[in-house]
């Protein structure tokens, strides 16, 4: 399994033909207490860089962008009752949605953990 990161602070785990998407620990830290997550509908097509989900904290509502193009196959139902999971476990239990991988080459432009760590250190 390979994990990639975007400069919009999403992470994406790739396993076979499916990818799991969430927001990074850095993102949840910046957002503060998360109170609501709006997930894309199963079956919806999302485009790389386009709006995919909304995350709302006590501070602000922010868009979460699709790291790659594909079709949404599952949303994390746990977030509906417990959006704070994104704060407590952003990169594990607090995942947002799973999607198909439309075009594997889109992964090439993303960062690996080391590059993302360096990217965040610059901010």
């Amino acid at each position, binding site marked *: 399994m390979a994990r990639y990161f975007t400069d919009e602070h999403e992470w994406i785990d790739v396993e076979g033909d499916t990818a799991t998407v969430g927001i990074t620990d850095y993102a949840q830290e910046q957002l*503060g*207490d998360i*109170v*609501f997550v709006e997930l894309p509908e199963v079956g919806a097509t999302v485009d790389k860089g386009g709006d995919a989900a909304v995350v709302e904290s*006590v*501070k*602000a509502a922010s868009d979460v962008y699709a790291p790659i193009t594909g079709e949404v196959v599952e949303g994390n139902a746990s977030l509906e009752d417990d959006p704070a999971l994104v704060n407590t476990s952003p990169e594990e239990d607090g995942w947002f949605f799973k999607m198909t991988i439309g075009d594997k080459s889109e992964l090439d432009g993303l960062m690996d953990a080391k590059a993302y760590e360096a990217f965040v250190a610059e901010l």
Partner: protein
Amino acid sequence: MNAPNKSGWKPTMPAGTDGKFGGPATTTGNKALMLEEALIFEIGTTETTGVDLPDVDDSAPSRLGKFARTDEIGLPGLSEPQTVRHYTRLSRQNYGIDLGFFPLGSCTMKHNPRLNEKVARMPGFADVHPLQPVDTVRGALGVINELAQWLIKLTGMHGVAMSPKAGAHGELCGILCIRAALEARGNAREVVLVPESAHGTNPATAAFAGYRVENIPATEGGRVDLEALKARLGPDVAAVMITNPNTCGLFEPDMRAISDAVHEAGGFVYCDGANFNAIVGRVRPGDLGVDAMHINLHKTFSTPHGGGGPGSGPVVLSEALSPFGPLPYTARTADGVVHLVEEESAEEFAKEHFGGPLQHFGRMTAFHGQMGMYTRALTYMLSHGADGLKQVAEDAVLNANYILRAMEDVLHAPYADSGPCMHEALFGDAGFEGGLSTLDLAKGLIDEGFHPMTVYFPLVVHGAMLVEPTETESKAAIDQFITAFRSVAERAKAGDESLKAAPYYAPRSRLDETMAARKPHLGFIDPE
């Protein structure tokens, strides 16, 4: 604490078994004369009506065809006293500036003088229609023109666009003026620079007007980093949008240097004037090199929050930007007559009176703006006078600094060392224990009888609390607030678990604010 009414009756609410205020439960759910109000659908019935309408003359054929309603509409009917009581009871559960202290930062919730209301209700102002013949509304146009002149004088600017309906609308108007001026030079440019300490609407405005937004960092002291700004200026920068005083409650002392640098690079300076209350009568933005600035009439010049209706955000313009302001505008000619200049007369009027062509970018609104705000704002200005307006700024700043210094030993005040604040004092949640948050503190203040301050804004401070007392409050009122604020802050720092469920004594306890906004129940579903 200087408790009010020392010898008199006190509201006693012994704690009940559930931790809420108590005494035995009542059969009705009412608490003495605080009534638990039913929904209007529960009070009224479809069988009742409170109005007596004449019989319908159905001799004329209906033209509704298949669109004619066949089902019952199902609206509840109520008698007049039922209706009056329902809404009066609901209003008793509300809180407003007429009830007490309202320290909502960035909102300037000042007292709205009753004289304003008297003037605004005069039939010559209240009952005019925007499509009336111009000759029948010259007095109202005169008010718009007089107010425009005052705004120009107070800001040291050259012109003003009166029609924008509120702050963000005014920002858009200003940026569109800048775009029009740059296009007239042949290049609209691409980038608008927005410092971190600016209002959140600024980047949204710039993006909406087709510009790319770039951030300029703040210094440790919470002000614009002048060197970083200078380094980024160039031929692609259309404008810089600055909030001054900024959202940290601080004055930007480098404003003149910022303006000079921006002008040298061929750009324009937009100033967000939402915080004008701190400097009205004391500082003229025109002297600081500002090219465009909106003024929230509904903040600085009373009628906070637009009195529940729309606000008004006129935009004052520099000499360079004035020709590009939107239509319509008012102008008093040498003969003393106030004209309303619209598209059909604009060219000719400009040629005759300004000696040149117009380059207006279009319109911001269908009509002339917010008449109700104009009359109130002009009344406020004229009743205060120049000396009074100066004192407004002085007292607003004094009150905020009094709160800042009275709180800084209890609450984290990130910019307390940056010198005096302007009209608002900013605190953060550093040092709160037991997982307590700014939200919990705010809810605790409700139990103490105060409307909370603005929370979680600005974003640059963790768990921000922005307190703006305005000049309205007396020292006694502020002292009471400070006593309450300190006590709740100390509970938050001590990790007082009970704060998590506050407020206990409000008509409604802690609400799920997220779900109320995200998944609101807007319809009535009859449980039967």
